[in-house]
């Protein structure tokens, strides 16, 4: 994370009031700086990415991600090692299942939780995310996601399809009502 760093997140939650107050101001500054940064490449975002960038998945539970149960990253790289490839992230959020299908141009990177992370064993909830530009000429983006267990996922992507359906209607109707939130 370039703006909403794990260190700033930890400082925000500090029991020391002076530190927490300082972090409150720093978070505000990071928010302003991040919005300005995203505005510098909003013009080249595909429409689906522009919609996705405004979505808030805070507190969503990661049902399935681009990693195996043992923590290693699942390889979605085609055997011929050609790009692009795809990867899915599935979330449970406000009684809906969300499927994020990224068209990726490189391997997904994962950074382990900092050693002082207080909730390393907690649920893998979606905390904060940021979008970044990797290459303006080739419309390459990076999506960084900080999870509640302290891990950081970095997804290099070209575009994304966001799909969602109701958990309840899925149970009642055997498949449920699907709604496409955004399409490339």
């Amino acid at each position: 994370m370039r703006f909403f760093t794990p260190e700033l997140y930890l400082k925000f939650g500090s029991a020391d009031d002076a530190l927490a107050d300082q972090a409150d101001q720093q978070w505000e500054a990071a928010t302003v700086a991040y919005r300005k940064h995203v505005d510098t490449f909003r013009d080249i975002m595909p429409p689906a990415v522009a919609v996705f960038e405004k979505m808030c998945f805070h507190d969503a539970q990661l049902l399935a991600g681009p990693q195996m149960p043992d923590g290693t990253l699942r390889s979605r790289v085609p055997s011929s090692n050609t790009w692009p490839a795809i990867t899915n992230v599935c979330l449970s959020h406000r009684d809906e299942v969300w499927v994020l299908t990224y068209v990726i141009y490189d391997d997904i990177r994962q950074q382990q939780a900092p050693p002082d992370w207080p909730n390393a064993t907690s649920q893998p909830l979606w905390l904060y995310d940021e979008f970044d530009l990797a290459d303006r000429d080739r419309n390459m983006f990076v999506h960084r996601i900080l999870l509640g267990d302290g891990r950081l996922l970095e997804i290099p992507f070209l575009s994304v399809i966001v799909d969602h359906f109701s958990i309840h209607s899925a149970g009642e109707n055997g498949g449920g009502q699907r709604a496409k939130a955004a399409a490339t």
Partner: protein
Amino acid sequence: MAKRSKLTNVVPADSPPGIRAATLGTNGSVVQGTMISQAEAELRRKSGDDVVVVGPNLQANRTLAQAIELNANGYAQRHPPHPSAGLNALPHYQPKFRPPAGHAFYETPNRKAV
């Protein structure tokens, strides 16, 4: 006759925080409802509803929001406002594990409930 100074809604910085029932509005905003007691706020949080602590003092707001969440759910994790949730999003406390849903929001000098 002396001119009377215009009364405004300026709240003294040392005034105690208040607690209100809350709901989520658009663009991450927190919509404040009726004024409630701390006990009522804790009941709302137990049942997964939102509350918001309002007032001009950041530390007092934060401390009270934490107490509400701790008393209601036994654990209070402090989260900054989410950038994607818009400029009206508020920092909040929430339990370590869901359910219950909801948040104990609190106002800051820069961010207010609507």
